[in-house]
């Protein structure tokens, strides 16, 4: 039996700054996971990924990342995505410093 589709966001790195960005439902990019478009349908996911990848002047290496939907919006399910939306643990740099 195929595995059930889990909610996803499209994410990648910004071309110029290199930092983590997320795709929104208005075809723009946000630096805040809370504002990302949460995709719950597999077919939609592929279409949205293609739409994101077509913005080659904005994003590098776009891919689908698992999230879980909470009251506060999408939250990462894997620690790697949690580090990506936060920043490194040894210095107060990256996203955590920009919030």
């Amino acid at each position: 039996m195929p595995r059930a589709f889990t909610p996803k966001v499209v994410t990648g790195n910004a071309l110029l700054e290199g930092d983590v960005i997320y795709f929104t439902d208005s075809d723009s990019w946000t630096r805040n996971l809370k504002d990302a478009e949460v995709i719950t349908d597999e077919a939609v996911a592929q279409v949205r990924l293609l739409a994101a990848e077509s913005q080659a002047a904005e994003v590098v290496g776009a891919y689908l990342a698992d999230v879980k939907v909470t009251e506060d919006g999408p939250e990462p399910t894997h620690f790697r995505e949690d580090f990506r939306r936060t920043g490194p643990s040894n210095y107060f740099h990256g996203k955590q410093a920009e919030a």
Partner: protein
Amino acid sequence: MYAYSEFDTDFIAERNRQFRAQVERRIDGSLTEDEFRPLRLMNGLYLQLHAYMLRVAIPYGSLDSAKMRQLAYIAQRWDKGYGHFTTRQNIQYNWPKLNDVPDILDALGEVGMHAIQTSGNTIRNVTADHFAGAAADEIADPRPVAELIRQWSTDHPEFQFMPRKFKIAITGSPNDRAVTAAHDIGIRIVEKDGEIGYQVIVGGGLGRTPMIGKVISDFVTEEDLLPYLEAIVSVWNVLGRRDNKYKARIKITVHEHGIDEIRRLVDARFAEVKPTFKGVDQQLLAEIRKHFHPPAFRNAPTDAFDQAYENDPVFRSWADTNLTEHKINGYAIAQISIKAHGETPGDASAEQMEVMADLAEKYGHDELRISHEQNVVLPHVHKSDLPALHAELKKVGLATANIGLISDIIACPGMDYCALATARSIPIAQEIAVRFDELKLEHEIGDIKIKISGCINACGHHHVGHIGILGLDRAGVENYQITLGGDHSENANLGDRTGPGFPAESVVDAIETIVRTYLAVRSSADETFLETYRRTGMEPFKAALYPPKEEAKADAA
């Protein structure tokens, strides 16, 4: 210190001009990311978890104060005020913006540095003994040959699209501080009947499939060395597995074909290659040697050192751990630890880099080295200057007396920065250092090398750590495997796994258990951790780490 010729300077300027245009074309949409990616990687620019990362080559880990100051300037001007020194004697900047990278490369070019071939399937930065030209046990300075290899391998037309990356290390001392046995090619300078030659080791490497290199030739003469290296790389370039990147490194080629067959093929290729060299490389080597004349060593009394050593316990502790015997009487090799307890191994702030540059100029004949153990070395300091040097290091938090001790940990950037990582390394290193500092056991434990990698690629050399730690992703949770008994030296050896891994919360406890077991079972205070492990084997450590279930339950109750 090698100084760029007009040719070198022009070459770098031209490459930087090309890269600037490539960046512009990527930004204006004329180049796709698929087209641009190999171009940026050829210039050392990676895209990591949170940002771009620029890896700058420090050839054989050698710097002067001008280069170090420029590295500090770049950190300050275009990054977040620090740099990370790596196990391949390079420096990495973790936060450059794409638009700024051409300017950074130009700034590097001003001091004769670049980021070429710090990535991609090319011959990478040639590494060497960080005590080169200073060590008391040295047969010959490996740096002139390292520089010759650098020039030969840089932009070598035959070796730009190889099956995989290729790493060369060279040592001039029988005490192997350059980890030569874990490189694609390791070179050891040897002496036979009064003649200097080169023992060549091939097929070593860590990573997914760790292998200790095998001797392909016991003695290659100086004039044969470069054609011999070219023959090895050439044979592998044809045979290497381009179909499977996990089997592409030369260690697998040597393993699959056997060292005898590889030697036969290399000898045959050497016979073809050798006549094409015509001695130009030897003329070049003679020119290069002029750049590496020893500095004008002073002959002066060492009373200031003796007095400070006698009267200042803090200085004495630093001198005992951080100094190494120099080949010249009255001199010492001083290691500056950039592993203060709780700090990130290998990171130096721009201010610290500037101070180290100043101190090298003032007390160290203007020479600095980066060690593969992620520390900075002042290779030539007269003993009478050491108390003043130590006092100035203390002011900027660089006088940590822990070289070779348990807090002198190698750690790769791990999942705090690296896109390939499967777990974090840095916080584990920080916690171990702080734990043993609080326990005040560091000096009692003595010589021990802990090496941590955040994935199987083993940038943190965990396989050859006396204690190795490998961070993995086990079902979405960070998990750490431990190995014991690894050795990076001339007696190179891969560590043995203790058993199942430990979650992040208990890996530091596990390390403490291992160390306390060592303290309990060592035959005397003089028996090092590695010696104890070789004598007792895994058994006492395993018993302490994995107590039987019943006992564990009783303990918990």
